């Protein structure tokens, strides 16, 4: 089973989680963490303890809001020191829904690729005909 952490500034992750719940219904294996007003070492400690609590073959995807932001830096640190952790930036609702719909059936590598594709594919400009 794969798990998703929405690691964002302020309450974006929490809001995405609530919004996804409204669309998808009850959600498991997704949680939101905020980096706001927190020391990066403390955030890393939270990520490490979540990772520790996973079963051996569980994968963890950390979706962050901004590449290069504090959320990205901390998440990459976990991915650097632990196995089966991926970090993806630019989290959006389509990405979260993609995880909910496809998270169980894909391998971790496939899942991360799919999240990137589905998240990117949702960025569309309406063309007036």
């Amino acid at each position, binding site marked *: 089973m794969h798990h998703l952490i929405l690691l964002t500034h302020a309450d974006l992750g929490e809001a995405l989680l609530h919004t996804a719940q409204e669309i998808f219904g009850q959600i498991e294996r997704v949680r939101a963490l905020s980096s706001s*007003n927190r020391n990066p070492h*403390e955030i890393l400690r939270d990520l490490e303890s979540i990772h520790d609590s996973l079963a051996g073959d569980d994968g963890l995807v950390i979706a962050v809001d901004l590449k*290069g*932001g504090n959320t*990205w*830096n901390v998440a990459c640190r976990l991915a*650097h020191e632990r196995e089966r952790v991926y970090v993806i930036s630019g989290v959006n609702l389509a990405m979260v829904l993609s995880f909910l719909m496809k998270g169980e059936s894909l391998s971790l590598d496939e899942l991360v690729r799919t999240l990137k594709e589905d998240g990117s594919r949702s960025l569309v400009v309406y063309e007036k005909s």
Partner: protein
Amino acid sequence: MKRAERNQDMPFAMVRVDDRMIHGQVVVGWASVLHPDRIVLCHDEIAQNEWEKELYESSFADSGIKINVFTVDELLRYIRSEEFEKEKVILLVETPKDALRLLEKGVAFGCLNIGGLHYRANKKELNHYIYVDSEDIQALVEISRRGVKIEGQDVPSARKVDVVEMLQKIL
């Protein structure tokens, strides 16, 4: 900026203490107000760790701002270079102690911004983004004693606060 025009007391666009180091508030928030040519994080351990250095230096590669992680010695060399004379620079350190070390090594700055020293156990709160322990307090007092103005301001739109005044209330 030519050396002649540069204020010798404050040769940087900003010198900032931030425990998140290079991140959005600096590269997006402050850079859009200060328009630096370069952002330098001075941090001996990170500068000597290839993986971490790359993480920070590559993060905003498409921002048009040069980003470097330097050891103290590399920073001293850079400050003496011709490049530095021409560039507008935001200088970042992780802790007040690191800022004091730069002063001791002869890096001059008249103003120090405290942008983030976030909550950790056994730290005292000055405001929601500044928490200090005895090591931070000692360094800040010494920095202030050397005539450097210490201002708290996390983002450009926030009101500046006098950190020494806030320290006096908890000491």
